[in-house]
């Protein structure tokens, strides 16, 4: 009746259909609306920078694995996700060699040096962004207004416009007027390629929550903390802060939904994720309100990344049955 040998293995005998690739692909899908917005506001150059970054990441992963005789895993989409996220953190004006450097740094130094997929202790895209910002601060902060007609291949020679956060801070951009809340919400403002459109990022973020790729814990606590703190510690005294502008501008939406939720570098415990969100919110607010930079989302996430293993350790959930035996 049975002609072949039966498979004998330990239970469970069935598995869900979800795979690493399907999870990563969901993230790519979630990033697509923001990419479309980027192409709309910053033109084809935004798409080009993104394509170069993604390609660099994939090539870097392939090259590393080939040289080290490891199984090639570029079809799991994880390098693509890193690539898109890194591109989203670059201004559309960067010279095209920069995403290449960033992509290789993200994949090889931050991800593969520490053991590859799931082992990186920092978000690769953010670490690469920090590296680029420290190395080439001028090129990395050349913001342009939307619809600036950037040349496609030539590095654009433009005058930097101010981001809303710089205006809020009132330093170099003093005197410029704030964009309207509608512009902020739609993304019709200066900034990096993928951070400006709150609407599109929200759509993507909600998709990830709906698909159970991420939980609400990190993004909601992160954004709420920034909102509350920037309102309380306003420039003109307590409870006068411009929380709405703080929440809608800069990299907060991108960071909260897509960067702080990076699996490898964030806690896995429910309580730990809430601590991660609140912690990143506090650091972001402190940097924005009192620090030297107008924006602090990236650094706050990187700092919390380092604390993630420790957070996991101290937030082990109370196990089922951790109760007193009835006397």
């Amino acid at each position, binding site marked *: *009746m*049975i*002609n*072949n*040998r*039966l*498979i*004998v*293995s*330990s*239970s*469970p*005998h*069935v*598995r*869900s259909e*979800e*795979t*690493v690739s*399907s*999870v990563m692909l969901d993230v790519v899908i979630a990033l697509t609306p923001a990419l479309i917005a980027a192409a709309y506001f910053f033109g084809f150059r935004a798409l080009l920078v993104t394509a170069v970054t993604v390609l660099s990441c994939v090539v870097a992963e392939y090259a590393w694995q080939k040289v080290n005789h490891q199984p090639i*895993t570029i079809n*799991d989409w*994880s390098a693509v996700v890193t690539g898109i996220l890194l591109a989203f953190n670059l201004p559309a004006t960067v010279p095209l060699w920069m995403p290449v450097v960033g992509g290789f740094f993200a994949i090889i130094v931050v991800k593969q040096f520490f053991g*590859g*997929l*799931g*082992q990186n202790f920092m978000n690769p895209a953010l670490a690469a962004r920090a590296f680029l910002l420290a190395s080439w601060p001028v090129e990395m902060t050349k913001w342009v207004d939307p619809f600036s007609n950037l040349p496609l291949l030539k590095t654009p020679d433009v005058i930097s416009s101010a981001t809303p956060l710089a205006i809020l801070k009132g330093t170099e951009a003093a005197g410029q007027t704030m964009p309207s809340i509608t512009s902020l919400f739609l993304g019709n403002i200066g900034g990096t390629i993928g951070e400006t459109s709150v609407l599109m990022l929200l759509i993507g973020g909600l998709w990830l929550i709906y698909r*159970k*790729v991420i*939980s609400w814990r990190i993004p909601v606590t992160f954004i709420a903390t920034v909102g509350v703190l920037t309102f309380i510690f306003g420039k003109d005294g307590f409870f006068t802060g411009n929380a709405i502008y703080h929440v809608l501008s800069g990299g907060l939406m991108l960071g909260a939904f897509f960067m702080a939720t990076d*699996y*490898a570098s*964030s806690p*896995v*415990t*429910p309580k730990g*994720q809430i601590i991660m969100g609140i912690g990143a919110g506090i650091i972001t607010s402190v940097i924005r309100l009192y620090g030297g930079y107008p924006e602090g989302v990236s650094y706050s996430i990187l700092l919390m990344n380092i604390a993630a293993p420790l957070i*996991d350790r101290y937030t*082990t*959930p*109370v*196990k*089922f*049955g*951790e*109760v*007193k*035996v*009835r006397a």
Partner: protein
Amino acid sequence: MKALTFKGGIHPHDNKHHTEKIAIKSLKTPGKLFFPIQQHIGAPCEPLVAVGDEVKMGQKIADSKAFVSAPIHSSVSGKVVAIEPVLHPGGSKVLSIVIENDGKDTVHESVVPKGDLSTLEPKQIIDIVREAGIVGMGGAAFPTHVKLSPPPDKKIDYVIVNGAECEPYLTADHRMMLESPEDIIYGLKAIMKVLGLNKGYIGIEENKQDAIKVMKEYAAKEGGIEIVVLKTKYPQGAEKQLIKVVTGREVPSGGLPADVGAIVNNISTCTAIAQAIKTGMPLISRVVTVTGSAVKQPANYLVRIGTSFRTLFEASEGFNEDPAKIIMGGPMMGIAQFSIDVPVVKGTSGLLALTKKDVALKPESPCIRCGKCVDACPMNLLPIYISAYAKKNDLEKAEEYNAVDCIECGSCSYVCPSKRHLVQSIRVAKQAIIAQKRAKK
């Protein structure tokens, strides 16, 4: 009423459509039947018969003096042709009594009605249950008379019948609820009488609306029995999770249900108790769901214990295609078989024949720390870390992360997108930790 549930868990495809609408079919077993002397948790039995003896249906053929054990009865009349080691569904050979069926089903003299439930004393009911060899029929096969005899300091105030049947594919309990509701209620009443309770509970998952309706009807006739509607989620029928949902009490870590004043019994266990009292027939048959995409005619069979798996698959007209895996029990916690020449035992709730496609094992990839195992764990553990330490053989750390509390439901392995063998590695660590502790004692 809103369906109740526990924290965590998963939603696998339930695949119950193959058999949930098919009435239980009674199956005769010609030829040889095999009775392993160990079909339960506890001490193995000693054979009471010798090769060449004539035996009758319902006759006790093996027993033990140990308290935690359950006697075994012949499910047919015929002749003992061998007492030899035979392959057991657990995977190893176990001493078994082999009986050649004479096809007459001559009933043994000891099989007589045991009297009316209203006149029986609790002690008498416990004896009837023990003598009938009744065990938990959901799979674990823990002797029921032991459950019914909690230590005197543990007051039981909840008796729950487990009609969750949360394992995918299985429909034996579902069909029993539809076809023998009065026996289920009768068995539950007997347990309530033993424990001196006037309230009992039957938990049923929402996906069995017809069973909920029928059981509610019959429960209303009797009074004192509440049907608890449970959310369809695996492992809703796990003992600790079911108790938590019904009573709000958590069985303490390392403790037993009796520690929180609860006992749980399977649907088929209740009907077995009813049969043992009403007709005096011990546990010699049970309902087995034979299903899976490789099976030609999936069905629910009322089958004699000792029947070979092969006979059941033959009754279902064999296979559509070569099965890749044969499982006794459900796909989440069942035991994979390497042969179909294995007998049905008291804990055989189902037989699955799955195709290569159903059980395709994708290669493990690195953990991406997505935390889905953490969300799925019904025991609120961190499978990601227990498994990591287990794989490094760091038992101390695995224990620190409560490996021993794992109920091995497999939810973590099921959800893992990296297809990591989480529960498998945790199971190994858990057993090693328990063995270590025993050695120290």
